[in-house]
């Protein structure tokens, strides 16, 4: 199936207590791209993610995934259609080990007959083995293979961010939403993250990225969409966005636009 748009939000709106946190926002994400959404704090980026991923139902507008209307679908159903995400406010399975966290990520690829599971039939055993191996691979991809058997609760913040990515990756999504993955990473770690995001995109997964680290954003994004106060302000390539005066004023500030220009240049 060839689409020129894999994820599309049309005129999405949502309100809390009368205030529109997302106001008629439309985005079209081409497949295989790294598509970034930036904007000041409280612009509605996370909320937009929440609506797209089915955590909140939109007030107005629609969401299309791979050409199908998925507006208002529950997150678990969206997940089964290939949409996965990470969270700005970490949502780990803290009592499970890192490996188990990622194994849950494989859930949508596992067949679960309760009776077979209760009896631990060979099919279940084989499947467990496969899930485990796949999960270990993904952990290795984000550099956490050494922490596989540690409880998630005992990992440092930066590792948790990567664990969330691993968990989402394990579900082999078509579209992956990343909400501030670089928060809590130092510049060197951020560089690693950039490579990871690139490799994810290269493997054919569309990445939608929300991030405040402009070096990262300008570096990896194919397209950037700017939200301010719940509304779309601009969209374009890294260069276009950096030179857009409205964006510089509302979000980047002079220094950063220079700094990120350096990063790109």
């Amino acid at each position: 199936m060839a689409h020129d748009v894999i994820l599309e939000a049309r005129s999405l709106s949502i309100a809390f207590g009368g205030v529109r946190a997302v106001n008629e926002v439309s985005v079209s994400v081409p497949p295989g791209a790294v598509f970034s959404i930036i904007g000041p704090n409280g612009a509605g980026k996370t909320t937009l993610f929440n609506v797209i991923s089915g955590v909140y139902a939109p007030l107005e507008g629609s969401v299309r995934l791979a050409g199908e209307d998925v507006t208002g679908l529950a997150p678990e159903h969206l997940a089964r259609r290939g949409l996965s995400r990470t969270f700005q406010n970490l949502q780990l399975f803290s009592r499970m080990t890192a490996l188990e966290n990622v194994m849950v990520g494989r859930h949508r690829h596992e067949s679960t007959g309760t009776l077979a599971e209760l009896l631990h039939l060979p099919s279940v055993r084989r499947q467990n083995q496969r899930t485990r191996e796949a999960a270990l691979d993904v952990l290795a991809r984000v550099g956490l293979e050494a922490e596989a058997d540690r409880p998630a609760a005992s990992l440092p913040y930066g590792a948790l961010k990567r664990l969330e990515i691993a968990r989402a990756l394990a579900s082999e999504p078509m579209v992956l939403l990343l909400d501030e993955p670089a928060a809590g990473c130092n510049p060197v770690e951020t560089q690693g993250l950039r490579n990871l995001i690139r490799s994810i995109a290269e493997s054919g997964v569309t990445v939608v990225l929300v991030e405040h680290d402009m070096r990262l954003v300008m570096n990896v994004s194919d397209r950037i969409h700017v939200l301010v106060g719940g509304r779309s302000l601009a969209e374009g390539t890294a260069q276009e966005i950096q030179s857009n005066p409205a964006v510089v004023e509302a979000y980047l500030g002079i220094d950063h636009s220079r700094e990120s220009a350096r990063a790109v240049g």
Partner: protein
Amino acid sequence: MLSVSNLTSAYGRIEVLHGVSIDVPEGEIVTLVGTNGAGKTTLLRAISGVQRMTNGSIRFAGTLIESLPSHARVSLGIVQVPEGRQLFSPLCVEDNLRLGAWTHRRTDIRRSLEQIYELFPMLASKRRMAAGSLSGGQQQMLAVGRALMAKPRLLLLDEPSMGLAPLLVDQILQTISALKRDGLTILLVEQNAHAALAIADRAYVLETGRITVHGTAAEVGSDRRVQEAYLGI
């Protein structure tokens, strides 16, 4: 002002700080640099008294404080902006701020509130909203604001710029510098090492629970290993 010597700390039986010593002179900004899992957060928690330490001592303004409960340390003026914001999510923004001034309950907190709102106008417009409903960056502002409400003498900042938009990152760093000018002592943990070293007087590098490099901010910033490992140069 603050002097930590030979501090060890463990989660269960796993030791994560193996005898850390740092000094934070009065009126200076000291920054702590280290990778994920180095133990920066653990060290700050230990200084605040919310993390058990197994050995070592902490001296604040001349007195040993390692046996004081956390609330007593706050009363002395040691206040922390914790990792992960740690807000009182069901309470509204203003209540969060008021509780920040818990140890100064009897003073006039109206003025302090106004100062915080001036610093973060976005919070002013949300003062009646539950803290839990704020965006990530707004929560971070609130966490910083709440700490400032306590009128600290020593401010411990654990990644204060996390989740903030670039403009606000600048603003926070400027604020930190300004606070220092007002006489506040600051211990700063910040992943944005460039920026942290730029405003700090002194720096320590923490690697897997041990201090490996320390000196003035300029010295540490020009250390080859630090540049490679932390600055990405």
